[in-house]
């Protein structure tokens, strides 16, 4: 790891006196094993490295990246970023992050056990996952994919402002897409399990749940159109939180793209609704101690007791807003400049289990999965419409399966219509934790 930071420092050494320069260097290793038919379908071993160089000079910003750490290419990348900076618009707030005195959380996100985990064992895990899934139910006819994936992520961020941060994180997950068939009809279900090291993976649960999700949809019909109360499963709630989180970024607010822009302090949800972005939570798959600009990540309450408490900021949006960075600079790898966004969202959980939530609903819908969140939800207008499948709720119990339907409302209205939050927190391979959530007055559109 010393090597990565040394490389970054060497590039930083090319900075000129009048320039602010930030170097973000990354070294990633990934293994992916896919099983099919009791054999290894594919085994991919990937190693990638690269650097992103940001130069700010005279209030103008330029950026360049390269997918290598070769010395000659790095010099060229620096020159490209410098050249690009000439063409930006002068912005008095432009600039890299200044150290703010906040120390990163003491959190071990690297587990050496992952490095010691032999290739053969990874293969065995993937094959065993497929075997367990096929054995889970007689109606399981096959899988679309069963995979084991692990990653080792190392990074270094150094800058002329005195930022010097390095870190390394491990992560792994298993996932399976299962196919169930009955009476010539096919349904599928997804299962997963995440961890920092393979010992944390629960392949039995992954297999069992994917089989359950697939089989319980068998015989699903298109329902009739009506308004009702829905229970979002943890998997669906997490995706909803991801969209909600994007509306609370300081960048969206500054640029007039947030539907909550003028609503700081307003009640937007029931008082039991508290939404936190906390990348320092170890259990989160996307936990990290340092943000995309090298500042310490921290726990930020976005919606507290139903009121909007805070928007997320990186150094730039904070400067423009006249506040401090919340340590929320996010980067999509070394190929882009830092944006602003949540890294690890979670709702403060209630206590009810999902069956208890269902038991309190006379007529409703359990939403097992949604599709088309990217095409039917507009986080600027708040319009919310997605494809969905799940089970009807009748008299407090799960009833017949339904599919080929949509659920629709608006983000603003859904927040106000939240009836209950469950206690079944679940960490998923995404930047939000899942929990069951009950929302009233949703339009279910079908036949």
């Amino acid at each position, binding site marked *: 790891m010393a090597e990565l930071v040394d490389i970054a420092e060497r590039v930083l050494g090319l900075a000129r006196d009048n320039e602010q320069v930030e170097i973000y260097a990354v070294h990633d290793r990934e293994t992916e094993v896919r099983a099919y038919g009791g054999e290894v379908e594919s085994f991919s071993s990937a190693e990638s490295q690269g650097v992103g160089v940001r130069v700010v000079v005279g209030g103008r910003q330029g950026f360049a990246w390269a997918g290598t750490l070769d010395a000659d290419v790095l010099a060229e990348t620096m020159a490209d970023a410098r050249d690009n900076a000439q063409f930006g618009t002068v912005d008095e707030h432009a600039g890299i992050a200044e150290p703010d005195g906040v120390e990163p959380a003491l959190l071990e996100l690297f587990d050496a056990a992952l490095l010691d985990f032999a290739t053969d064992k990874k293969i065995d895990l993937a094959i065993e996952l497929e075997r367990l899934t096929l054995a889970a139910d007689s109606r399981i006819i096959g899988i*679309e994919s069963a995979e084991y994936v692990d990653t080792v992520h190392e990074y270094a961020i150094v800058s002329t402002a005195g930022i010097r941060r390095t870190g390394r994180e491990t992560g792994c997950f298993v996932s399976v897409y299962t196919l169930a068939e009955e009476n010539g009809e*096919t*349904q599928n279900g997804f299962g997963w399990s995440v961890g920092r090291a393979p010992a944390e993976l629960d392949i039995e649960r992954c297999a069992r749940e994917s089989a359950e999700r697939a089989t319980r949809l068998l015989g699903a019909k298109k329902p009739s159109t009506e308004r009702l109360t829905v229970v979002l499963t943890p998997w669906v709630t997490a995706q909803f939180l991801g969209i909600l989180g994007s509306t609370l970024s300081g960048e969206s607010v500054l640029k007039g793209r947030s539907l909550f822009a003028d609503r700081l302090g307003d009640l937007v949800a029931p008082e039991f609704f508290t939404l936190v972005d906390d990348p320092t939570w170890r259990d989160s798959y996307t936990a990290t101690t340092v943000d995309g600009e090298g500042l310490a990540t921290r726990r930020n309450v976005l919606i507290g007791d139903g009121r909007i408490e805070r928007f997320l900021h990186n150094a730039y949006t904070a400067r423009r807003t006249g506040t401090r960075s919340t340590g929320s600079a996010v980067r999509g790898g070394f190929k882009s400049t830092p944006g602003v966004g949540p890294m690890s969202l979670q709702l403060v959980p209630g206590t009810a289990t999902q069956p208890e939530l269902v038991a309190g609903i006379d007529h409703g819908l359990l939403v097992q999965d949604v599709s088309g969140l990217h*095409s039917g939800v507009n986080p600027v207008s708040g319009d919310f419409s997605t494809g969905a499948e799940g089970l009807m709720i009748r008299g407090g119990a799960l009833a017949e399966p339904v599919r080929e339907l949509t659920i629709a409302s608006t983000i603003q209205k859904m927040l106000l219509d939240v009836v209950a939050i469950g206690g079944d927190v679940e960490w998923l391979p995404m930047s939000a934790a899942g929990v069951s959530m009950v929302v009233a007055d949703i339009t279910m559109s079908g036949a």
Partner: protein
Amino acid sequence: MTTGDRSSHGATLLDESVIRSTLDAALRRGGSFAEIFVEDRRSSSAYLDDGKVEELTSGHDRGAGVRVVVGETTGFAHTADLSPEGLSAAADAAAAAARGGGGGVRAVALTRRPTHNASTVRIFPSEVAKARKVELLQRADHAARASGPAIRQVAANYGDSRRRILVANSDGLLAEDQVVRTMFSVSVVASGDTGMQTGRESAGHTVGFELFDTYQVEQLATHAAERALTKLRARPAPSGSMPVVVGPGGGGVLFHEACGHGLEADLIAKSASVFAGRRGEMVASPLVTLIDDGTMAGEWGCFGIDDEGHPAARNVLIQDGVLTDYMWDHLRARKEGRPTSSNGRRQSYQHLPMVRMSNTVIANGAEDPADIIASTSWGVYVAQLGGGQVNTATGDFVFGMLEAYLIEDGKITEPLREGNLIGNGPQVLGDIDALGNDFAMGHPGTCGKDGQGVPVGDGTPTLRVTAMTIGGTAA
């Protein structure tokens, strides 16, 4: 300026001797097939938001992926180190998957295929001054803001890339290709009494900077602004099942999701598609002829060779409603003992290829589009679709409507707010009861599958589906 001339832009990506030694290393521990894929991709982009040119970005990616097939197993590794040592290490890693495959040495004789660039590039974007790219952004910003005081925010994005690839494999294939892409997009926010609405417009082709001889950025910006302004007076979309008319160029996403993915041979082989085992059967209305065509010069999903080295092809998938063939990559085709359909694609050298679409189009019909609308008494007209998603195992698919209107008594009337539509692929294909004669290509798209994104195009004439479910909130 050159015309699609490879030689003017440097020599081959990798020497033949290095290719040969890498393939040898890959097969050292056995295996029936080895391949090396080399990629060199340079890109530049410029982004304007909130009235400011926020940044220009330059990027350079270069590396190679090596795959080895042993029995049913594929081993894959990639490296950014194109030295003989770096490639040999990647070949070793890929071959490591060949457990117990038995060793062997095979001499590979390579036959270099003639290079045929799919599209003609007149002005290489790398030779255009950055200031000119920035100027496009500012022109778009001004034009969008000039569309009315309700326009509150404008973002404009310029991007270009030049991707060179070389593919060689143990069957003796050696081929190279270069694809240049240039794109521009504008996103607008308008604000009114009913809140905020957004509008977007984009253009992208496998051409160079001459893209802007065809497209005026002011026009793209004005279109985006109009979309946002129109939606300020939009009413909530209806809910329930009703007829849907999709405008020209708009329906491509529908077919991409309704049946495109379901015709990919990798999903077929795993019975994860409702179209498995249905070749020769009527799977759509007789009006429907569906073609996947990687050869359409200038279109977003066009290429000279696919990412397995095979020349782009035009494949008829559905002819007059009858399923004629699936789409194939090398691996699936080899198992079936048939040629590939040149649909083996990958996001980059860091990815394994798989079956992917290129430009997916519906052949022109015969009806006047005006008649199709006039003969619809009640329903929804979708002028621009957003993205979509499909569950190939069940056939259920959704797509978003970015610009849509009510149809009342045969006339397009009020604008509708955004939402998804949902349908079932085989059902919807059968329910197409009208096809216009106004074929047009849609917008440049990125298709995602198993975490890999590749550029795709689509196109359709105006068409009508007798019933789809609209995911609105109104009764």
